[in-house]
């Protein structure tokens, strides 16, 4: 390691903030190079004195001030249990929930006959009811281009697409 590199790493070497291997190389260089050793001492002196000054700068809470701060905190909205965190704090979950709700609603808005079919199928027999729940259909209609796309998901979530 040359002197230029040593100077680059000296600020972090001061408080053992370098990996052991690099630190030991710097240490051995410092024993051989008086200029870098001098640089190291300058860093040590300036940093240790600045640190001591700042550490000597302290403040104390006055009792009344501390009470006022606590009162200010208590006057704000009280913390609640995690269960009651509004969904707005979790944008990903809110988005996912909205997507699912929109998908479910779209089934009935686009094709309201599904509900009727389910009802009539349920009335016909229990076996038919199971059959109607084997798949979910989404129908997307473009009035401009007069295209109707039907997505059918079976119970294994395999997609079947029908374009009319």
């Amino acid at each position, binding site marked *: 390691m040359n002197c230029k590199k040593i100077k680059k790493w000296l600020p972090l070497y001061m408080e053992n903030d370098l990996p052991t291997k690099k630190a030991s190389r710097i240490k051995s260089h410092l024993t051989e190079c008086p200029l870098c050793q001098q640089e190291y001492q300058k860093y040590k002196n*300036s940093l240790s004195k600045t*640190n001591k000054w700042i550490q000597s*700068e*302290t403040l104390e809470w006055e009792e009344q001030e501390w009470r006022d*701060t*606590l009162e200010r905190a208590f006057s*704000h909205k009280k*913390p609640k249990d995690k269960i009651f965190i509004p969904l707005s704090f979790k944008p990903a979950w809110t988005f996912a929930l909205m997507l699912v709700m929109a998908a479910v609603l779209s089934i009935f808005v686009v094709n309201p006959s599904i509900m009727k079919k389910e009802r009539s199928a349920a009335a016909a027999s229990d076996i038919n009811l199971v059959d109607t729940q084997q798949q979910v259909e989404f129908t997307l209609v473009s009035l401009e281009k007069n295209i109707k796309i039907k997505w059918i998901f079976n119970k294994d979530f395999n997609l079947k697409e029908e374009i009319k």
Partner: protein
Amino acid sequence: MRDEAKLVEKVLDGDESAFEALLHPYRKGILNMAYQICLNPEDARDISQEAVVKAYQYLNKFKKTKRFKNWIYTITVNAAYDFLHKKSSQQNLIKEKEHIDIDKKHSPEKLYQNKEIRDKIKSCLQSLTPKERIVYVLRDVREFSIKETSQFLKISSQSVRTHLSRARKKIRFQYEKLNHKKGDAYEL
């Protein structure tokens, strides 16, 4: 740590006195951390008050498996960072107003000494960016590890090292500049 988890539960159940008991061991630490970062008593008090209010408001987000000490100091550091960032964007960081801590317990000599020390520190720290200042105070003054500092600031350890290296270089430069300016008669 278990006691702290119990106190957190009590606060969440509406016990306000538990909040005071929870913060009591750290109240001095919060104030001094804010003060050592901004070096202005009035600003330090504002930052600390903000940190206490936020701690109460967001206590429901505290994970009981984590250390409360780190959580409350993270809030303080973030409040200090927001404050410094706002101040530096207003270009007031360097030209800070003169503040003397009015305390009747201190003699005029003591107040003068305090002011002198504060001026010296300010000269050394005024060239640092808000992040460099915070990283330097956390690592060198408060003696937290690189890992803890990175957790407080939510940045990588490598980023902490980069800011720390720059901060130490600048402090050394400012320190020598100050010494050179004042001559041998003013050994710091």
